């Protein structure tokens, strides 16, 4: 019954009117301006998101109480074409330096103007290396909320 599940990467795309250089700048250096404040793993409400604009740079959030909560790091910083991030938040919503999943963001100029932004979050099977992955998700209030919101009709039916 137990089979190895190798999930497909998560892929999302969006088209913006901005040119490639601006799109890259808003995504990377300007991340704090658009990152949804609800997308936080810190214990304190999120005040700021920081992505250091250099390969090897840190990627973290700062809470209202001044505490820093690391998310991962910048693996490649190649404006205006590509950004490669290490997402190191595990299913327990905690930073885990031993967990590395990749988030690649590509910026492609469109002939008619504007830019297509393709995001791929891969290596998801690495989450599965952590035992008891679902339990903490279910136990944390945020985890439940996220899970239930996600499954909406399925979970509440």
């Amino acid at each position, binding site marked *: *019954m137990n089979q190895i*599940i190798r*999930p*497909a990467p*998560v892929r*999302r*795309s*969006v*088209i*913006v*009117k*901005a*040119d490639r250089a*601006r*799109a890259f700048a*808003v*995504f990377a250096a*300007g991340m704090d*301006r*658009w*990152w*949804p404040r609800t*997308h936080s793993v810190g214990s304190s409400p999120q005040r700021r998101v920081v992505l250091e604009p250099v390969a090897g740079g840190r990627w973290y959030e700062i809470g209202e109480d001044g505490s820093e909560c690391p998310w991962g790091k910048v693996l490649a910083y190649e404006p205006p074409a590509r950004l490669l991030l290490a997402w190191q938040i595990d*299913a327990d919503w905690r930073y885990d330096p031993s967990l590395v999943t990749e988030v690649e963001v590509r910026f492609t100029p469109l002939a008619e*103007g504007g830019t297509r*932004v393709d*995001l791929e*979050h891969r290596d*998801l*099977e690495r*989450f*599965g290396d952590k*035992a*008891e*992955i*679902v*339990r903490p*998700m*279910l*136990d944390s209030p945020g985890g439940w909320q*996220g*899970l*239930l*919101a*996600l*499954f909406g009709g*399925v*979970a*509440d*039916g």
Partner: protein
Amino acid sequence: MRRAILERLGRGPQPVGRLAEGLPVSRPAVSQHLKVLKEAGLVQDEAEGTRRIYRIDPAGLGEIRRWLDQFWDDALTAFAAEADRMDEATGKGDNA
């Protein structure tokens, strides 16, 4: 009801009969809910003798994947709004 079933399974693997004991619905109804949960990738089942034991999917990769899918969808939507807002604010002259 399915939330209640998930919470019970969170305490450990159980057969349908035992799950149904503490719930105000019939055993066939519990089976039906389990079927939906299984299709959603939330639970797994395993034959043990003549009965089936249900448990929460231990890898949970389906859930993680779906969660991240929604997460990045929200994030990119917010990003696009900001990028377009900046574009409007600075005028098209920059790009012309």
